[in-house]
């Protein structure tokens, strides 16, 4: 009996000793040891665990090959000496070479190039790829030199350089030309004619209060002067409204005039520099609320024949902005996409697909009639991230279409 007991206890002890271990991630910074090799190790391992490779960037262990190909090159550079400008540039070139083909437009690498951190170089693989598409004959080294010198703009044609939203609004509609120094100074909203009748009672009162105090009162952070914009804008739209919030959000909404070549009358046109409405909507920013109410009024006008959402140069932003801007356009919840995120340290660890909806939300009355009318998203090479998801949204409408060039490609999560 004693032997039985002893053997049983021994066996149980062996089983209890069995244990599993939890993975403890290594902080990339802990690998950095004052040598270029350590910086490379930190960068490579940080990317290895956090960058979203999908099946695009390392389908055949390309990121492993990066390690094998570059570790010795960084070892050769030895200790970091910012006074040795040649080695600093060599290190930057190596980082450029090993990152230049990454596909996520969200990704950019910033490298300090002086000991006090005053100098740095910012490198986006997408910039390299666009430069290469623009001039296939350009050598990678010459592209790197321009980036290193901070002369990225020299790599791009004017067409691409000015594809950002501000340039689009300036060039297409003459906005911001006359008052460009002020355009970023404070939040403003202005319109083609007094459309205060379209506003809710609450905003009407607030607007009347602002008008009575005069538009020069800076504390109001809002001014809605009449007929202040360039005549160009009035050539296209019968009614319009412009919103500028410092250097953060620029938007235009209008109703097209009759007689425009290729565009029917009474089409809503809305141009958005990005999706940061949530930021201002949630703090009840007056110009933003006015802009949104005017847009809402247009959407509920049954005579409207369609909508153009101009996402050229739109740099993305909050997902919730789609809800704020378009929730009254769907007769019922509309599934627009499925989203998934990276979960875990391994390269192919992904979470579940989560459906993304525009959830029907109407403050009063019925949904807008727009959902069954033509809706078009305009895109260009600088439409990125949430602008791309919004383009997916447009395509889910029965008559939704996307027109324009290839977009920037911001498909990974922001880390």
């Amino acid at each position, binding site marked *: 009996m004693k032997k039985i007991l002893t053997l049983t206890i021994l066996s149980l002890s062996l089983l209890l000793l069995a244990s599993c271990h939890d993975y403890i991630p290594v902080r990339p910074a802990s690998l950095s040891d004052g040598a270029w090799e350590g910086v490379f190790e930190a960068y490579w391992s940080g990317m290895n665990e956090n960058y979203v490779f999908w099946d695009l960037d390392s389908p055949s262990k390309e990121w*492993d090959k990066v390690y094998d190909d570059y570790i010795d090159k960084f070892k050769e550079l030895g200790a970091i000496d910012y006074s040795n400008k040649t080695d600093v540039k060599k290190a930057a070139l190596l980082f450029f070479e090993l990152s230049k083909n990454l596909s996520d437009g969200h990704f950019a690498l910033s490298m300090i190039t002086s000991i006090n951190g005053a100098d740095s170089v910012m490198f986006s693989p997408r910039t390299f790829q666009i430069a290469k598409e623009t001039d296939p004959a350009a050598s990678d080294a010459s592209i790197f030199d321009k980036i290193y010198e901070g002369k990225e703009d020299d790599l791009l044609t004017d067409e691409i350089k000015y594809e950002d939203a501000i340039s689009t609004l300036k060039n297409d509609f003459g906005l911001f030309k006359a008052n460009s120094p002020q355009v970023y100074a404070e939040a403003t909203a202005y319109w083609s004619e007094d459309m205060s009748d379209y506003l809710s009672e609450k905003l009407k009162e607030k607007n009347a209060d602002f008008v009575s105090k005069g538009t020069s009162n800076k504390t109001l952070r809002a001014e809605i002067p009449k007929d202040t914009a360039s005549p160009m804008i009035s050539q296209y739209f019968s009614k319009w409204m412009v919103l500028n919030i410092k250097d953060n959000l620029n938007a235009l909404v209008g109703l097209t005039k009759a007689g425009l070549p290729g565009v029917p009358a009474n089409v809503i046109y809305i141009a958005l520099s990005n999706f940061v409405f949530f930021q201002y909507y949630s703090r009840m920013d007056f110009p933003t609320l006015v802009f949104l109410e005017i847009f809402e009024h247009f959407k509920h006008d049954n005579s409207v024949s369609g909508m153009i959402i101009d996402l050229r140069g739109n740099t993305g932003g909050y997902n919730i902005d789609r809800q704020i801007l378009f929730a009254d356009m769907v007769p019922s919840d509309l599934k627009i996409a499925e989203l998934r995120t990276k979960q875990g340290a391994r390269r192919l660890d992904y979470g579940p697909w989560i459906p993304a909806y525009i959830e029907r939300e109407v403050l009063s009355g019925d949904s807008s009639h727009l959902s069954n009318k033509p809706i078009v998203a305009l895109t260009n090479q600088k439409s990125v991230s949430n602008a791309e998801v919004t383009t997916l949204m447009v395509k889910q409408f029965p008559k939704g279409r996307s027109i324009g060039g290839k977009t920037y490609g911001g498909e990974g999560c922001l880390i």
Partner: protein
Amino acid sequence: MDVNNHFIEVPLLLNFTLGSGRIRSVTAVGGYLGYWILSHREGQLFDTSSPMWLEETPVFYAENVEFNSIKDNRFEAGMTLKTGIEFDIDAVTVFSLIGADFSFTDLNKNYQKNLTGRYDLVTYVEAGVLLHFGGEK
């Protein structure tokens, strides 16, 4: 996130019995081969595109995970160790064992450098009754 993995396993064990009285010590040692037939996960995430996000209402999910031939190694092999006691009551033998399966194989294929391994370790309790047929025990 809760993940449940399901396997079919075929064990091959050597069973050692110590003692010849009514109560005996039993230890089983051997190996097993397995096949990962199902992976199920459930949990909650926040859908940042939903207005409910503002109220921090989560999106619940429960799904069978689609296997990925690049990353998932569905064949498994390992060692089994069990120990416990058995005792006779009239014509039957009652046993109670505690056991563990130690997997030698990673649930990941070797698809990247610095791969964090996932090895199964299963502990369990077994209890049962042996019925004796065909003559005296």
